[in-house]
């Protein structure tokens, strides 16, 4: 039996979180000493029957109270600011991340790489590269937690959530579901393999995948009949999707919305909620007809055609 006191530290966020953790430990030790050393001293010195000066002093109570109210408040605000700064960095991903999709369902993790590789309860990633996970749930709330990276994000059904990190050390680390999700919650876990970039490329190549994620999405796009309206837009009037991703879309209620992952998700599942200006709300909902995996593939396809410049209309 071993007794580790401290978890592995394998991401940029881990180092930052641990700095705050140690500062808090130091502060706690200081406050414990500040409260309990005098207390133990008083308990000893003023125990009943022991001779001591017990004449009551006329202490400036209000000044003392204000002092021990204001100083802890200032310290608390300082720690708040430090924790908030690191949190902000943890929550907002940088540009040019490696994007990987993670779907949680009772009781397993399904992972999709853009190159088309799929894995279950394992996550292979290259070291020293910022990775952004897009998380989706098929059923209940899960939470994707990698202790060695000090990173956690709930995976909430009905929406995408994201989580990013930059691993700093090659190795294998456990990940868990950390939000109780039913019978086999304890088994819903896996291993992160942080690899050298070349090893990662080799691993991707060994997967022997036929289609990239976007290509799978394109196949779905045809199979589900999306292409019938969105490609031959002269037959049935539907908005073109090329170049759409991350652009501002004018809506029929005269507002604009950015075509991000959330918008694409909502437009497929709740197509009448945000109708593009100049179009009729004709599209049927795909809610219940496609799984979270497929939805992520479709969106990968839309992103892949989104990056091309749209053809200018004459």
């Amino acid at each position, binding site marked *: 039996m071993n007794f580790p006191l401290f978890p592995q530290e394998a991401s940029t966020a881990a180092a930052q979180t641990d700095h705050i953790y140690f500062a808090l430990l130091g502060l706690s030790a200081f*406050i414990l000493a500040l409260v309990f050393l005098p207390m133990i001293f008083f308990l000893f010195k003023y*125990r009943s029957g022991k001779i001591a000066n017990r004449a009551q002093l006329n202490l400036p109570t209000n000044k003392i109270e204000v002092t*021990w*109210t204001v100083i802890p408040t200032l310290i608390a605000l300082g720690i*708040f600011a430090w924790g908030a700064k690191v949190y902000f960095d943890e929550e907002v991903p940088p540009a040019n991340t490696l994007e990987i999709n993670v779907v949680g369902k009772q009781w397993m993790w399904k992972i999709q790489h853009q190159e088309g590789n799929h894995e279950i309860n394992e996550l292979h990633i290259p070291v020293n590269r910022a990775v952004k996970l897009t998380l989706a749930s098929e059923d209940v709330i899960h939470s994707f937690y990698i202790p060695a990276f000090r990173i956690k994000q709930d995976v*909430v059904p009905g929406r995408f959530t994201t989580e990013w990190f930059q691993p700093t050390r090659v190795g294998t680390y456990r990940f868990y579901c950390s939000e109780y999700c039913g019978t086999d919650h304890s088994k819903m876990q896996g291993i992160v393999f942080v690899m050298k970039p070349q090893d990662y490329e080799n691993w991707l190549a060994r997967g022997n995948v036929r289609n990239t994620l976007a290509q799978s999405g394109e196949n779905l796009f045809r199979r589900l009949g999306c292409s019938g309206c969105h490609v031959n837009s002269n037959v049935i009037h539907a908005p073109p999707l090329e170049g759409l991703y991350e652009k501002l879309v004018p809506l029929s209620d005269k507002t604009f919305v950015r075509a991000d992952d959330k918008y694409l998700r909502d437009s497929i599942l709740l197509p009448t909620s945000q109708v593009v200006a100049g179009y009729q709300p004709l599209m049927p909902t795909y809610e219940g007809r496609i799984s979270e995996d497929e939805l992520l593939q479709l969106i990968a396809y839309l992103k892949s055609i989104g990056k091309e410049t749209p053809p200018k209309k004459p």
Partner: protein
Amino acid sequence: MNDPEQNYLSAGWTVRSWLLTTDHKRIGILYLLSILVFFAIAAAAAAMMRLELLTPQGDLVLSETYNKLFTMHGVLMVWFFLIPSIPTVLGNFIIPLMIGARDVAFPKLNLLSWYLFIIGGCFALHAIVLGGVDTGWTFYTPYSTAYSNSHVLEMAAGIFIAGFGSILTGLNFIITIQKMRAPGLTWFRLPLFIWSMYSTSIILVLATPVLAITLLLMSIERIWGVGIFNPKLGGDPILFQHLFWFYSHPAVYIMILPGLGVVSEIIPCFSRKKIFGYKFVAFSSVAIAVLGFLVWGHHMFVSSQSIYAGMAFSILSFLVAIPSAIKVFNWTATLYRGSISFNAPMLYALSFIGLFVIGGLTGLFLATLAVDVHLHGTYFVVAHFHYIMVGGMVTAFMGGLHFWWPKITGRLYPEKLAQLAAIILFIGFNLTFFPQFILGYLGMPRRVHEYAPEFQLYNVLSTAGASILAIGYLLPLIYFLWSLFYGKKSSANPWRATGLEWKTSSPPPKHNFAETPVVTEDAYEYPPLNEIGEHPDA
């Protein structure tokens, strides 16, 4: 009626005289007996869990059983032991005595509260007997509404009904304290226990209805499939968390404020000295009650709530720590130049301060956003809230029970044995829960019945501690029962304490006071001490 030997216990011996009593003291006893039953069941569930966690493999019970055990432990401990503990037992018994009243404002309503509590408790127990619930005490959606195949509705009904008992108790206390204080007992002469119970009652009245609404909405979705929380029906699962924690975070303060009040009574009495900074200690209870309503989102830092909301909730959570710190500083200052004796209530009060400070400091870790991202949902959280709720509230409850035992029963408990039990509890508690802080930072998730082998050592320590803790709870049970029959008879004021409850006989007569007392001085006006710590003028 005027027989001086007649007290509230000897006023009637029939079952009917207990079950239809409107005497706040008897109702306090009824609550004490009933919450002990729930405590025993919930503690047995905890014992099973600790045994399961001795080894990394899930070998003692099935994962399904384990999930039902922790749900049962949480539901019973929170709603059927901790929330009622100090308020309904000590609060019911002591508040009217402390303020010089004959009873609470609405004695019949008080009895109704107990019946609601018992009916709710029967629903909860019935749900457990039928096969249990596996949602965790938090009932997170959509698991609870669409995926759990257990007796969610019946358990929710039990909590719903018991909640109305809480609301009525809170209402009763507010009006009692507001309207029934003895002549001369102004707000700033009130014992601090009254201030803390008043703050607690306000939370009970304002927060509990939100729990009722939340459980009702959850039940509507579960029964009729109305989309409120389940995204597949167009609902929002995060909405449930907002509603649930809007009640359940203030509920955490229902589970600690009364404990803070008890400690504020014990410390001056066993230091023979007025409490330091009375007004600051009093208003810090009010501040905790108010700020406690504004921090619920700190349970949701990783839930996908907006990061700016997270920042607001983080800063407010740091601020709510300040009034608690003020209390601790004032208690320490009270010891200065006092005359301290280490009777069991004082040992409990001191161990309360130690455990409460550790619980509070680790709360700062969890209020810090970036650190919480790592610690949320791990054993660190489990350790933290057990330090507050068991280390804090249960220790204070034990302290209060020892302190007022002579008043309640008219008998003294055996002091040496009680001091030993207090020390055993302190050691057992720390051994059980301190290793869980380390487990949490190492990354062990909570609510798992299997775990990685590297976590085993700390789990073994924790289970070992739990067995010591069990002795610490059984010992008082035995000597309290013993003292009922063989304990020395207590005088009216065995601790030479201030406070009106000590001015009447032990146990008190049916209507508390022969004449309505008149108050002419502040709380805790102990006479001056000489250099060996006696009151020469008294």
